[in-house]
């Protein structure tokens, strides 16, 4: 801990050490017999255990028990001037509460790292073995850690499993699904209405019908190829946002939320159409006749009676389709989802990742911690899917209760 050159530091009391560490600027301030030179502190880096250990030795205390002033001193003394300025720019450090500063000390200076992790069953049934293993690691603390935390949901992706989260992926998923929804629902319901109500049974209509039924069975990876060729490459100017001046032409490409959303929109379009047709076909003949009998045109009948009556059924199909889009992975990988991204997507022209892709990437990492993150991610995905479905079912029931 003490530099070789400072050989005057032989018998230092704890109190002096404390001052060296947090307060004094020059050696002479602490003891007049020491040289009048500035104190150059060694700033501990990632090997965080040192600081923890040091704090415990010097203050005879753990960080948790230190008063705000001490924590503040530790913080200001141990982060680089630039970082301190950045922190102050967010909100003046001195004005923050003790707990916030404690957290800063831990995240900025102590920087705990996960050395080893065990699954829940291992933790329960092989506890002695784990304790022995932990004891062998210097400065290690054993901690029960839930991977599924609020921080996990609200933090962006990170290469450090301890701080990695799914927020960016959740936003990406929502964006992509929203675009898929906006593309497929109007188009799908429109196509279903046309085929059921307005089609005259021409050859072309027959061809369209056969194709829709076939498309519903095409593997999703094929849609990925289509999306890559059409949206990413051919319409790259549009999907990258360059055409709208929303992106830098020298760096932007079509691997954006818009391309992915359009691809998934196409993917679920046949599903939406088939389900909507089914729902429209189920509208009783008597209802249409009632409308026609009053002198309604076809369009008035469809708009005022057929579609409202079919709406719950149409919504059921939409729910199924949107859930499918939400969980789809393969086509997105082809279309070019980002492998590592920490910037939250803020427009349809942004780079993105989605929750299933994120999970997929975590599972393919060798470190065990990422596998645990993947498991937590899957829970988030399931809960989100359930939430989306529950909302949609709630809406559907509200619509159908009117009748």
């Amino acid at each position, binding site marked *: 801990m003490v530099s070789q050159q400072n050989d005057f530091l032989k018998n230092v009391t704890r109190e002096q050490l404390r001052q060296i560490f947090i307060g004094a600027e020059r050696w002479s301030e602490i003891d007049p017999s020491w040289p009048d030179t500035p104190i150059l502190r060694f700033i501990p880096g990632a090997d965080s255990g040192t600081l923890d250990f040091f704090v415990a030795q010097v203050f005879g205390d753990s960080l948790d028990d230190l008063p705000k002033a001490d924590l503040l001193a530790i913080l200001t003394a141990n982060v680089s001037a630039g970082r301190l300025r950045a922190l102050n720019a967010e909100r003046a450090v001195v004005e923050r509460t003790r707990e916030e500063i404690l957290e800063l000390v831990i995240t900025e200076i102590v920087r705990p790292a996960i050395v080893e992790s065990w699954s829940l069953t291992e933790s329960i049934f092989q506890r002695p073995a784990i304790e022995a293993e932990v004891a062998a690691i210097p400065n290690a603390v054993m901690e029960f850690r839930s991977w599924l935390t609020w921080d996990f949901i609200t933090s962006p992706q990170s290469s450090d499993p301890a701080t990695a989260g799914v927020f960016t992926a959740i936003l990406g998923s929502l964006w992509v699904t929203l675009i898929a929804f906006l593309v497929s629902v109007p188009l799908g319901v429109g196509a279903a209405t046309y085929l059921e109500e307005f089609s005259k*049974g021409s050859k072309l209509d027959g061809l369209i019908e056969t194709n829709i039924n076939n498309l519903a069975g095409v593997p999703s990876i094929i849609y990925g190829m289509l999306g890559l060729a059409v949206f990413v490459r051919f319409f790259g100017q549009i999907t990258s946002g360059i055409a709208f001046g929303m992106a830098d032409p020298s760096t932007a490409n079509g691997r954006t939320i818009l391309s992915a959303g359009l691809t998934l929109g196409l993917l679920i379009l046949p599903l939406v159409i088939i389900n909507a047709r089914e729902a429209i076909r189920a509208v*009783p003949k*008597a*209802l*249409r*006749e*009632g*409308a*026609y*009998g*009053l*002198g*309604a*045109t076809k369009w*008035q009948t469809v708009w*005022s*009676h057929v579609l*409202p*009556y079919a709406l719950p059924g149409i919504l059921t199909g939409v729910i199924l389709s949107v859930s499918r889009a939400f969980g789809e992975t393969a086509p997105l990988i082809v279309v070019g989802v980002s492998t590592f991204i920490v910037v939250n997507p803020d427009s349809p022209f942004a780079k993105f990742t989605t929750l299933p892709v994120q999970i997929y990437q975590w599972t393919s990492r060798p470190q065990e911690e990422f596998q645990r993150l993947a498991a937590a991610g899957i829970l988030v995905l399931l809960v989100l899917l359930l939430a989306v479905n529950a909302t949609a079912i709630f809406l559907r029931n509200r619509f159908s209760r*009117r*009748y």
Partner: protein
Amino acid sequence: MCAAQTSTQPAVKDNYAIEARDLNVFYGNFHAVKNINLRIERQKITALIGPSGCGKSTVLRAFNRMNDLVPVARTTGQVLFHGKNIYDPDVDAVEVRRRIGMVFQKPNPFPKSIYENIAWGARINGFKGNMDLLVEESLRGAALWDEVKDKLKQSGYSLSGGQQQRLCIARAIAVKPDIILMDEPCSALDPIATLRIEELMRELVEQYTIIIVTHNMQQASRVADYTAFFMVDDARTGFLVEYGESDQIFTKPKDRRTEDYITGRFG
């Protein structure tokens, strides 16, 4: 269009509300009814009777081009409405149906509020006046106002079968048609509800021409001024046997087959 010439021009030659001339209807290759010639009197109730499958509904639906909605249906001959054949290419079926309303066998109110059930038809036909007044007027016309005036916002489905059928009648008269076609309007109703509809028809005929299809001979003799009797031939094609005032048809029919039918010997 055919509609505009009517009430403003009294110089219509014939005195009939609607007239079928050599009317034939086919469903695909099946000849459903043949050579129907029928003149429906104004502001009278005309009943179409006959055994099941003889084409009563088909003829009735031919009067407002409802058969157009059946893709395989094909109609030949003429249906003259105010001197104009409604099957002429320049006639809009939608306009025909606005002038010739329809009430169906099973009550089929819209899945909307009672108020909306009536207002919708008027609105799509460009009604610009006081809607509340029209709704009340139509419901009164269908003898339903007193029963529903406090729950106009409730669903049409919340009413009883008989009330629903009267709602459908109110809905039909709200667009102020010339003719109201009714296809067995009471067959889904109990006797008391049936009686109310029959009373209602007698009131409505003050203003409207009514054509009703019925299975019920008593009903036809009770409410109808005129009765047309249909039958099927060996090819199951329907044709008109006898047509005249109900009194005459039910008391001294000219045709043996009519007599057999109304005395219950077959059918």
